[in-house]
């Protein structure tokens, strides 16, 4: 009964993953895949010698940590809002999830249109309010491109956090809150002392899942800036994608992919350790 599922996952995820490690030690050209040569650590030494690698690493770090941090804070606020009583709550809970179910390309083009320097509505609003003096090319400016992309990803990622935390909030027993109230706890104290510890496991798991996804996610960047201007939005996976499909260097791309995977393993291990430490303390 397990065979079909295992065959698919094994054949199209597990096998390629193992294969990637092998590829990273070969020189494999996109245009002539069969002419493969074992080259040892050449791909890795070459990679560490390139300034793009370090730039993309830095961008990846800012992208991942920044996005998840903002999504967590705003998602937490969102979950508390959705947990309050108001009319049409069920409908609105579904509605705010919409960005999460929207195709990445669609999100990209909606925002591209909003951010358009000449015709976009954002510049119009900001000019009208007086926050801007002249139209701004948000995605073409080295200073603002990465931050703009991050804002879009945060917009799309908030609902996921909100829903996960909301589910945890609904598991908080009401009598516990009643008891705390009777003991004289205000809403603020109630939140920090009673609610937060109870929803912590869900928050920690969601943060970890989201860190991994965000680190690996580059569809949005690929469509909107493709790493530019001047590599200011080049992240590690996008760098690998360019290496494979612009540079035709599949071996080098596999090496970057392996580094990305190993970095994520390190991140997860550190994260788990911190979590365990704080639980013991």
């Amino acid at each position, binding site marked *: 009964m397990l065979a079909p599922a295992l065959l*698919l*996952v094994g054949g199209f995820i597990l096998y390629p993953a193992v294969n990637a490690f092998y590829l990273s030690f070969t020189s494999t050209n996109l245009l002539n895949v069969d002419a493969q040569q074992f080259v040892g650590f050449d791909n890795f030494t070459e990679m560490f010698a390139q300034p793009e690698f370090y730039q993309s690493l830095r961008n990846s770090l800012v992208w991942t940590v920044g996005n998840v941090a903002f999504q967590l804070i705003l998602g937490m606020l969102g979950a508390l809002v959705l947990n309050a009583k108001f009319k049409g709550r069920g409908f609105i809970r579904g509605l705010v999830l919409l960005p999460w179910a929207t195709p990445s390309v669609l999100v990209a083009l909606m925002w591209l249109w909003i951010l358009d320097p000449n015709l976009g509505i954002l510049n119009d609003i900001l000019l009208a309010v007086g926050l801007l003096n002249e139209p701004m090319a948000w995605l073409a400016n080295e200073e603002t491109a990465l931050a703009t992309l991050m804002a879009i990803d945060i917009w799309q990622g908030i609902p996921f956090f909100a829903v996960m935390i909301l589910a945890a909030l609904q598991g908080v027993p009401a009598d516990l809150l009643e008891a705390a109230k009777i003991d004289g706890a205000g809403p603020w104290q109630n939140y920090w002392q009673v609610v937060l510890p109870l929803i912590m496991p869900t928050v920690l798991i969601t943060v970890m899942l989201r860190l991994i996804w965000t680190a690996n996610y580059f569809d949005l960047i690929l469509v909107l800036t493709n790493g530019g201007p001047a590599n200011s939005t080049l992240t590690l996976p996008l760098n690998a994608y360019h290496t494979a499909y612009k540079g035709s260097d599949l071996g080098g791309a596999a090496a970057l992919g392996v580094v990305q995977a190993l970095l994520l393993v390190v991140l997860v291990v550190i994260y788990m350790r911190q979590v365990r430490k704080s639980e013991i303390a």
Partner: protein
Amino acid sequence: MTTDRMTTVIGRDTDVAAPTQPRSRIPRPRFRPVYLLIAAWIVGVIGPYTWMGLTSITPTSELNVNSTTIFPENPSFQAYGRLLTETGFLRYMANSAIVAAGVVVVTVLAALLAGTALSRYHFRGRRVVLYGILLVTLFPTILLIVPLYIQLKSLGLLDNKLGLILVYSAFAMSFSTWLMKGFVDQIPVEIEEASLIDGCSKFGSFRYVILPLSWPGIAAAGTYAFIYSWNEFLFALTFTSSDAAKTIPVGLSQFIGENIIRWDFLTAGGVLAAIPILIGFMYAQRGLISGLASGAVKG
């Protein structure tokens, strides 16, 4: 179509069978500022979609005037007509639909079998399979895309809808399997035992007990598989090159040209791409959310 049926089923039945936590809410009455936050949130979510929808019915002549108007003076659907006749978009929509239908069928069948096995039988290596299948979804796409490309090429499945179906099914499998397992867990073993005593075969009890009772799970897993394959961009972009296999996201990304961006095509295509997702999602969101949440809580 199968997907339509599934999505309607979920709308009715989730309440009964969806795994939910004990329902208790924090009493927070008369907290008025909440309405302000909700209003701001709704505007922030709906705004971009509305803006896209309005642009799609704005004639090109009004669009290129250098002052932004929010509501078109002469709304028209000519962008849609031209999109469907002048570009390959209709073809991309058909490809997306075929791929999504294939993924739904393969994923639901495989996940139902695997989910039932993992829920009912305690065989050796069960935990390894259960957590292993979850772990592989965390592999970076970028790590897999190059070896997958080579693999599909050697199988002759590059630029091929079947290739996309197989890859998408593999990637939709873990969440779907966990979802199905959760739903089968909810079905009391006693009903199955009763059916066996009444003379059902093992297969019969699967067919007449598990299958009908796990419909909400099937619908949720099917919708998830549908949304995933309808939205997926990176694999589609990398593994397809001709109109025979390109899906909607790839088609849309092509309209973002180097020099000229066809806003009329992009916004009209965006609306057409969003409609099935909106419908499927609005029907299935309860089942998906509870599946998502319970997976994380148990997880």
